[in-house]
């Protein structure tokens, strides 16, 4: 049984509201996405800004209401929960944010921020217990418990991110959605936070949905990776497989954009032209065709379905031939 199974999840936002509240168009932020997370594993989610990866992460937590689809959490469909039931369920899945400044209330002490979950769910019977729990949580993320009465602005970016993690841990969740948790941090701090997350996973068996645009990082910590483009999953595979044998032209372009510290490297760079099209009015057929270097006529009219190309490797592209090669990666068969 999976910890989390997302089936055909869609999120739409109304845009261009008319004078009297009439909705004239919809922005498809997430379009029929399937996703599965097992207990204690990390699933990576990559894509450009605005491709809907953060929206997907929030929709899974019901922080944004999905328009369609199911979210199965350990056999129960949580899209039907509401009110008290939903608030009770929220203990099981948490989120940590990209921006360590705005993710903490500037008027709340760090101890109160971490203890908020204990207050909401009445997990601590008395003040002493509450303080002990907060101190233990701060220690588990590498913070000095004596600073519990300090305010967020007195901490560095990395420390604030640790506070955010401690707050999420307070309810002992099974899943944490990490929404680009390190992209706002210095490179040296990034490694510390990533290692902290990995340690916590090892000791507590927490599953992560790790949202990022740094492919190298995602490959390092994830078992499986999903690539999103314009609200849709275009490719999903095991992390190493995806990095070394990408099949979708978009994934290939993303990987070729990862900088390599080797001046002799003679990699062929794929440079994508144009902009990401508007999700309000996505192009017909394959949404990627206006930027795809190998687009064929049928890409402009028929949307490719996400299909299993080989064991555990799915891609949505017309150009993948029967022998699993694509124009951008003709050697894909040699695996």
């Amino acid at each position, binding site marked *: 049984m999976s910890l989390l199974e997302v089936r055909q999840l869609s999120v739409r936002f109304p845009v261009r509201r008319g004078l009297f*509240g009439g909705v004239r168009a919809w922005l498809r932020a997430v379009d029929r996405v399937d996703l599965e997370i097992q207990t204690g594993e990390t699933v990576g989610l990559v894509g450009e800004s605005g491709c809907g990866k953060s929206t997907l992460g*929030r929709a899974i*937590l019901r*922080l944004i209401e999905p328009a369609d689809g199911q979210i199965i959490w350990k056999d129960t469909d949580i899209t039907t929960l509401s009110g008290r039931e*939903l*608030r*009770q*369920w*929220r*203990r099981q*899945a*948490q*989120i940590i*944010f990209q*921006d360590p*400044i*705005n*993710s*903490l*209330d*500037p*008027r*709340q002490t760090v101890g109160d*921020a971490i203890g*908020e*979950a204990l207050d*909401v*769910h009445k997990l601590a019977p008395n003040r002493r217990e509450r303080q002990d729990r907060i101190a233990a949580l701060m220690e588990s993320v590498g913070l000095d418990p004596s600073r519990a009465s300090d*305010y*967020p*602005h*007195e901490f560095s970016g990395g420390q604030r991110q640790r506070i*955010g993690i401690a*707050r*999420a841990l*307070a*309810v002992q969740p099974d899943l944490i959605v990490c929404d680009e948790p390190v992209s706002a941090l210095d490179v040296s701090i990034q490694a510390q936070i990533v290692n902290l997350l990995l340690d916590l996973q090892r000791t507590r068996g927490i599953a992560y949905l790790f949202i990022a645009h740094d492919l190298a990082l995602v490959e390092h910590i994830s078992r499986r990776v999903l690539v999103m483009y314009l609200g849709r999953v275009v490719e999903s595979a095991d992390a190493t497989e995806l990095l070394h044998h990408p099949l979708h032209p978009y994934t290939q372009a993303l990987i070729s954009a990862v900088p390599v510290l080797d001046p002799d490297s003679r990699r062929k760079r794929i440079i994508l032209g144009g902009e990401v099209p508007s999700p309000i009015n996505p192009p017909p057929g394959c949404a990627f065709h206006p930027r795809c270097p190998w687009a064929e006529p049928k890409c402009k009219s028929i949307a490719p379905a996400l299909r299993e190309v080989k064991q555990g490797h799915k891609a949505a592209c017309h150009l993948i031939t029967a022998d699993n090669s694509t124009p951008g990666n003709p050697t894909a068969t040699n695996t």
Partner: protein
Amino acid sequence: MRVFSLGSEKRAWDRFRANRAAVVSAWFVVLLALLTFFGPFAWPYEPNAISDLQFAAPSLSHWLGTDVHGRDMLARVLYGTRISLTVGAVGAGVSLVIGALWGAVAGYVGGRTDGIMMRIVDILYSLPSIIFVIVLITALNGLVERWQAMGLSAESAKTIQLIGLFGGLGLVSWLTMARIVRGQVLSLRNQPFVEASRALGAGHLHILRRHILPNVAGVVIVYLALTVPAVVLYESFLSYLGLGIQPPQASLGSLIAEGASQINPIRTYWWLIVFPACTLAGTLLALNFVGDGLRDALSPRSGQNKG
């Protein structure tokens, strides 16, 4: 935009103290308030005690002179200032309660509710508010007169009129407060820390109490401090027209009106108009300085450059 934090509150306090005009004004307001509330105990004259000594110029026994009924002007100015300050504080309080609640609900609920609530504010904005208050108070006065004919005591009639004045002034000055609070709440609602709180399973009341209200408080305090002088001015204006405080009660506005009525070609009793007018001007100036000082000290933007 960044919201300020409690630690920066100390910095804000330091900034306020560095603003000399604001500090002097704050002391002025505090001393004036103390004087109007405790002064009457030390001063031998009652504000409404009539004597034979009419139109006496300022002297050692009557520092600010006496008026047409021989009433001591210092006692009356103190009394009038007290009424004016009370009206200002209560009126601002009424505007705070209505405006903050209205704005918070509109901003937090959002969507169509927000649209409807803020359109109502827009419509009320477009009405000439002072005329609205005049109509309201005139109508209330008419009602009170009818009730008095039916056996209402003069004492409770006065109370009703006073409450009507407080309410009327508060009712017209909550609009800007609602807009300010709504804007703040709207931006706070989408902050990640509010989202985190929701993700933890917190309900709306918890989020409003623990996150939204503490973060809106600073801006609300600033605007409240600027609303008090505005209401004082409104009240003086109404009293000058004879609609606000009814004689023999006095406010700064009605005192100025009485003084103005005594101006004639033969003799000007300058002390009847100069002292209440100067008190009103000084109070308004000081209250505005305090409000400006608070805004400079607490405003979210000024907090940013000092990191």
